[in-house]
């Protein structure tokens, strides 16, 4: 049965991210909407309507279903900043993997997924441990207190890791970090477009250099692979590098910071992890679930009429899957508001679900595990230097996090 949008009254004029009442909880409207129905119709700030998928089971069903398109360039796709300029810009660029469907997506993903196998990533573990130790050495060497953990550890670790994997000079990290932060913040459209254009130009130059002077890195291997197949496509390589570089550091950095906040504000949970490092992987899953930092990035467009979760979605209608809502669905996680590192939260949707599920998820898992283990082992008295509720949370960014995280020990 289709709900009448006028009856809903929640999330009317939706703009993501929705403001959170408490920095650790989803917005209040999420729970009310989920209790109403697992899938509801809502009105967007842009004027259009879209389906809001709130339930865990329904979110999985939508994200695995090939009848829903990820192509943001299509008419009717639920964009939150749907203006002519954004749409023109989207349509003028080759799509990122995130925006592809079906066979095109499958081919693009298969070309690169071999770089992210569990075995390949395990081989990176010692180097990532060295990187984490290096930045913690620097923290321990300074007399300065408090230290901003975002700048000292959260950002540099994933940035250096992704730089080494891709073959991007780490000396350029200030440039790509600041441009990425700007792109995912709710700054002005002009600022976001300028950041996007500057970063794209930088990566374009980088790919051009690698085409003539290949190195031992992921991007050079992609160039060689395409050459061998006779399909060297400069623009698609720029898109791939853009996606991997931006997605590869900003998300992990935010999750490191929030994970530390989550553990420090739940000392009994932290104590359980410290007592047995074998619990760390499970704790990482729970922290990923609890914070679900990339909410609402999984929008889709129905290409056919689909009956799902008790509603009839018509071809041409937009769907927003809220992974934060799904990850706080009591049907999938008992007492979702409790941070419980031993609950077994692997079935969370923080990395999405379906064929687009995060390509770098196992790299992110490993980075988070190594950071939390090493940080709390080497600085066991680590504590927040400001009350958690006063931290500058990224309330207006597409990817949730904290701007600064003052810590002391």
């Amino acid at each position: 049965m289709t709900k009448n949008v006028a009856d809903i009254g929640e999330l009317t004029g939706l703009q993501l991210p929705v403001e959170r009442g408490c920095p650790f909880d989803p917005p209040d409207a999420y729970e009310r909407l989920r209790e109403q129905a697992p899938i509801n119709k809502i009105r967007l700030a842009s004027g259009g309507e879209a389906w809001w998928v709130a339930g865990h089971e329904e979110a999985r069903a939508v994200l695995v279903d090939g009848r829903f398109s990820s192509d943001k360039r299509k008419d009717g796709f639920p964009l939150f900043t749907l203006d002519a300029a954004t749409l023109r810009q989207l349509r003028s660029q080759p799509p990122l993997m995130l925006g592809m469907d079906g066979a095109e997506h499958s081919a693009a993903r298969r070309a690169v997924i071999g770089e992210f196998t569990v075995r390949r990533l395990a081989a990176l573990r010692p180097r990532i441990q060295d990187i984490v130790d290096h930045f913690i050495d620097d923290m321990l060497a300074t007399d300065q207190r408090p230290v901003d953990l975002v700048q000292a550890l959260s950002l540099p670790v994933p940035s250096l890791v992704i730089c080494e994997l891709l073959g991007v000079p780490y000396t350029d990290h200030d440039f790509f970090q600041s441009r990425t932060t700007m792109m995912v913040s709710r700054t002005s459209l002009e600022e976001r477009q300028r950041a996007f254009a500057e970063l794209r130009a930088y990566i374009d130059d980088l790919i051009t250099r690698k085409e003539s002077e290949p190195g031992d890195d992921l991007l050079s291997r992609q160039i060689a692979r395409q050459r061998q197949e006779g399909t060297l496509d400069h623009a698609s390589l720029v898109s791939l590098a853009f996606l991997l570089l931006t997605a590869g550091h900003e998300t992990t950095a935010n999750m490191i910071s929030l994970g530390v906040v989550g553990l420090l504000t739940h000392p009994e949970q932290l104590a359980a992890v410290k007592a047995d490092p074998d619990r760390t992987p499970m704790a990482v899953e729970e922290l990923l679930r609890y914070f679900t930092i990339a909410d609402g990035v999984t929008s889709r467009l129905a290409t056919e009429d689909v009956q799902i979760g008790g509603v009839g979605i018509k071809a041409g209608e937009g769907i927003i899957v809220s992974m934060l809502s799904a990850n706080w669905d009591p049907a999938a996680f008992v007492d979702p508001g409790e941070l419980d590192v031993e609950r077994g939260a692997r079935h969370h949707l923080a990395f999405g679900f379906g064929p687009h599920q995060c390509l770098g998820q196992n790299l992110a898992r490993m980075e988070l595990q190594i950071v939390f283990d090493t940080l709390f082992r080497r600085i066991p008295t680590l504590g927040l230097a400001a009350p958690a509720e006063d931290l500058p949370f990224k309330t207006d960014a597409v990817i949730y996090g904290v701007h600064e995280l003052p810590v002391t020990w």
Partner: protein
Amino acid sequence: MRIKADTHLCVGSGQCVLTEPAVFDQDEDGIVALLTDHLDDQSAAQARHAVILCPSRALSILQE
């Protein structure tokens, strides 16, 4: 219990390998490879979990 892996549906997320490395592996291109298709009781429980976690529904249980 026997299990089937559809290599055309696989998207190489590696969830199955993380869950039960005694049963699931990935080839060089990241695609699922079964190390065995006859599972003992302990592996069967883990493999059932992998079936649930697989983001592309590439895994299925053939017989209990």
